[in-house]
């Protein structure tokens, strides 16, 4: 049994008061006269036994009243924390094995100390109850005992997932008493941004708060190439993040590559990006590790593995169907400019557009763009068919030069996904501009335009377009229901048709801001986006994942196809921990009901203004009322 306010137990000393009063002689006596005391003596003699019994009961009832009052204010409750053999309870002991738990304390691993602490908690639990041990980071892994626990550096934290797992586990338990012990540093980064539903957490939750690693930390937060496109001198960017006030001003940053090369620099310990220039002879995979040599409390995130494929730019052949006298009048002009645009200076476009009037050698080409090309010769069609079937991509921009009859032959060759039915004359354009009304935002080519805030394709208005009859997939339609963008396929390659030229003769859409991202998305789709599954014919990708308890692999580079990069969770590098009260408040955890056994390092604070489960004050109040009635009855009865 426990007491919420044990100080009131001192009131039990007041039980002596009725005893003293009972023993004290009654001094308040009024003197009266009677003719004889004979009958008084007779009455007293007769009622002596009853009188004694009545006085005794009266004394006992008064003592009981005082006792019950003291007990009532002391607020006793039945312990429902750690179950004992008689109670048959179930206890879950969850050990936090996230990265923030792994730091050195006087040359001893804190994670090891925490694990030993959890083992002691389990050992000190009374026999008879059921105990389940588990470790958690982002996920929860149950163990037979904590000795099996393998500490993985850099695991992230998700308290909500741990608490949900515990709740679900205990909901399934048939034990009458359930208890959860959470051994953790209560790092703030483990708190989800949004409030997490903690329904059902009405069991006793005992928090064993371990020491946090400190108030400052420096980490290598990312390593990336400035651009994945090959250049002879590759710019590698290493991101540093520093929290708090470091004890050192600078440190050495070393980037080591698997091919043996390494670069180092002394950098100030402050948040920022450090650039390294790496000469590259040819495109290929760059793998390695960036390491910050600094003695900070949490060293796991001082290293970061990286692997990225440096690829040559994609060669795009732009076949201009109607080269004009001025360059900006050429059909491929705007397309060429869109493909060459880079985000920053010194950045390299992933595309290498080449303008031509003829279908040149397509051996190094990935995409062929036919810009208002009137027709194709049989040789060209044969060449293109082989190109596309082998995995190349083809995109049409239809314009006023297009020969509808010639395109029927192209359709028959499978190089055009549909048939053209109408050729509007230069003067016979749409009565009014027809915007793109609907588009398939689930398609990978148009996923970027899912949200109109990110890109509104309806800003693209065609003054004229071809009418395409097709059974192939229509990616976008105009307001007059005519297809604006159609997708087809031939062998391993993809074909896209845009029913409008990429010039300003049939609309001003090349000058719309949406033009550039649309062109880049269409061409990126044609090249093949990053896909973890990896499509045949697409460049190999690298899968990045955090350290995972179930996976069990520490940070490093694994595999080749696909290659997996495992790095520590950056959030573990953010110092700062919650107090127990803050943690309880965030997750709405009930207060503990007993002083826990075993883990002597921390003491649960009891909040007097909150009722415990299984408090006994109601029963004491009823007993007090009964005693008051009894005392009143005995006192009045005479």
């Amino acid at each position, binding site marked *: 049994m426990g007491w919420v306010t044990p100080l009131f137990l001192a009131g039990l000393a007041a039980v002596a008061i009725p005893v003293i009063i009972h023993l004290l002689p009654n001094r308040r006596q009024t003197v009266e006269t009677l*003719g004889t005391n004979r009958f008084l003596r007779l009455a007293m003699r*007769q009622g002596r036994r009853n009188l004694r019994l009545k006085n005794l009961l009266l004394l006992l009832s008064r003592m009981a009243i005082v006792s019950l009052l003291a007990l009532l204010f002391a607020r006793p409750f039945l312990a429902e924390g750690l179950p004992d053999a008689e109670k048959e309870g179930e206890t879950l002991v969850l050990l936090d094995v996230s990265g923030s738990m792994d730091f050195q304390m006087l040359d001893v691993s804190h994670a090891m100390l925490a694990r030993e602490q959890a083992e002691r908690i389990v050992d000190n639990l009374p026999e008879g109850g059921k105990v389940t041990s588990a470790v958690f980071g982002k996920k929860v892994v149950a163990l037979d005992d904590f000795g099996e626990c393998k500490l993985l550096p850099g695991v992230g934290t998700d308290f909500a997932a741990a608490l949900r797992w515990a709740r679900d586990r205990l909901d399934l338990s048939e034990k009458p008493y359930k208890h959860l012990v959470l051994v953790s540093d209560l790092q703030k980064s483990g708190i989800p941004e949004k409030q997490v539903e903690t329904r059902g957490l009405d069991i006793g939750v005992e928090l064993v708060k371990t020491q946090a690693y400190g108030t400052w930390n420096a980490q290598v937060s990312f390593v990336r190439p400035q651009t994945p496109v090959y250049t002879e001198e590759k710019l590698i960017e290493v991101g540093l993040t520093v929290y708090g006030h470091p004890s050192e001003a600078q440190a050495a940053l070393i980037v080591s590559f698997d091919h043996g090369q390494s670069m180092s620099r002394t950098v100030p310990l402050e948040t920022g990006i450090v650039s390294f220039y790496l000469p590259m002879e040819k495109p290929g995979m760059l793998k390695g590790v960036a390491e910050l040599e600094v003695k900070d409390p949490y060293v796991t995130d001082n290293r970061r593995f990286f692997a990225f494929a440096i690829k040559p730019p994609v060669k795009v052949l732009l076949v201009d169907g109607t080269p004009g006298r001025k360059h900006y009048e050429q059909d491929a002009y705007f397309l060429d400019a869109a493909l060459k645009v880079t985000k920053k200076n010194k950045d390299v476009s992933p595309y290498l557009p080449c303008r031509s009037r003829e279908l040149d050698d397509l051996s190094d080409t990935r995409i062929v763009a036919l810009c208002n090309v009137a027709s194709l010769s049989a040789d060209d069609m044969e060449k293109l068919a082989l190109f596309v079937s082998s995995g190349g991509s083809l995109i049409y921009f239809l314009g006023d030069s297009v020969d509808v009859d010639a395109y029927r032959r192209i359709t028959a060759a499978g190089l055009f996904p549909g048939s053209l039915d109408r050729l509007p004359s230069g003067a016979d354009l749409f009565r009014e501009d027809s915007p793109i009304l609907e588009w398939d935002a689930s398609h990978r080519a148009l996923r970027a335009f899912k949200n109109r805030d990110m890109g509104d394709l309806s800003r693209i208005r065609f003054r004229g377009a071809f009418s395409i009859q097709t059974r192939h997939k229509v990616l976008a339609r105009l307001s007059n229901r005519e297809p604006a963008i159609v997708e087809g396929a031939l062998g391993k390659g993809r074909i896209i048709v845009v029913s409008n030229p990429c010039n300003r003769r049939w609309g001003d859409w090349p000058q719309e801001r949406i033009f550039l991202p649309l062109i880049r998305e269409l061409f990126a789709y044609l090249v093949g986006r990053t896909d973890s599954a990896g499509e045949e014919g697409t460049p190999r990708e690298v899968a990045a994942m955090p350290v995972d308890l179930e996976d069990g692999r520490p940070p490093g580079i694994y595999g080749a196809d696909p290659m997996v990069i495992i790095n520590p969770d950056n959030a573990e590098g953010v110092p700062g921990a919650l107090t127990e009260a803050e943690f309880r408040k965030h997750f709405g955890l009930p207060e503990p009901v007993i002083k826990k056994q075993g883990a002597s390092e921390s003491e649960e604070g009891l909040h007097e203004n909150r009722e415990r489960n299984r408090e006994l004050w109601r029963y004491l109040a009823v007993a007090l009322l009964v005693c008051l009635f009894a005392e009143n009855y005995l006192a009045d009865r005479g």
Partner: protein
Amino acid sequence: MKASQNPNKAAPAAADPDLFMAMDDLKLAAAGLVEGTLHGLHRSPYTGISPEFASHRSYVKGDDLRYINWKLWARQDRLFVKQFDAETNMNLYLFMDATASMGTAHGPADKWRYASRLAAGLAYLALKQRDAPGLCVFNEHLSRFVAPSVAPHQLDMITTVLQEAAPRGETNLHAAMQEALSACKRRGLVILTSDLFDREEEILSGLELVRFHGHEVVVVQVLDPWERKLPDRGTYRFRDLETGRHLVVDVQSIGEVYEKTVASWQRTFKRACEELDITFLSCITTDPLKDLMVSFLSKRMQRA
């Protein structure tokens, strides 16, 4: 009767039990008590001891119609009532217990004051009926004796003795009655007014002795209200007025038992008196004297 010292004080009503207690003049109190009592009755309450016919006398208003000689009326056209031996000069012996226990006062007056007013009233009534009242006042022994007489100053003598007496001494009713009997030459009606706080066998043997001497006996027990029923609550140190001993009592704890004990004792006494052909009356000092007189007279009428 001495007038109330405070003229502003409202005069008590005739039915107020405190009325006769407040009167210092016993004669006046007695007269008022008797006249007030008789006024409420519709026939003369007088009855003699013996029914032996002695002579006739002229009818006076209030005489019992049962004693009218109708034959004589028929013959002489005048009303005559029969007189019996006891009709004239019946001796009324007022035995008054003036022991210390009669000094208990939790009502309008102590028991002695109450008893003395009753005695005065009975004396007045007796004289009115041409009986001869006498008085025996005893403490541990017979302290004062007034021989029965119908003399005009007899009431004065009786009331004077009653006013001069004060409760004192321990009760020894048997010895006192024995001593009083020696002074009572002629048979009569003995009215013992006492709280009867003596050993029962002693009292009954004394009464038996009185009966043996041929007297008719009426016992009027006068108790203090607390002597019949204790207050509801409180702790008291009760002093026995005769022995002087103290007893501390929490009345709440024994009140019910005490009341039952007293009632049982009274019933026992009453049964014993009935066996001796003694009329037993019991009252407390808060009972109206007039009611007691009526009760007494009713008993007398029933007996007759």
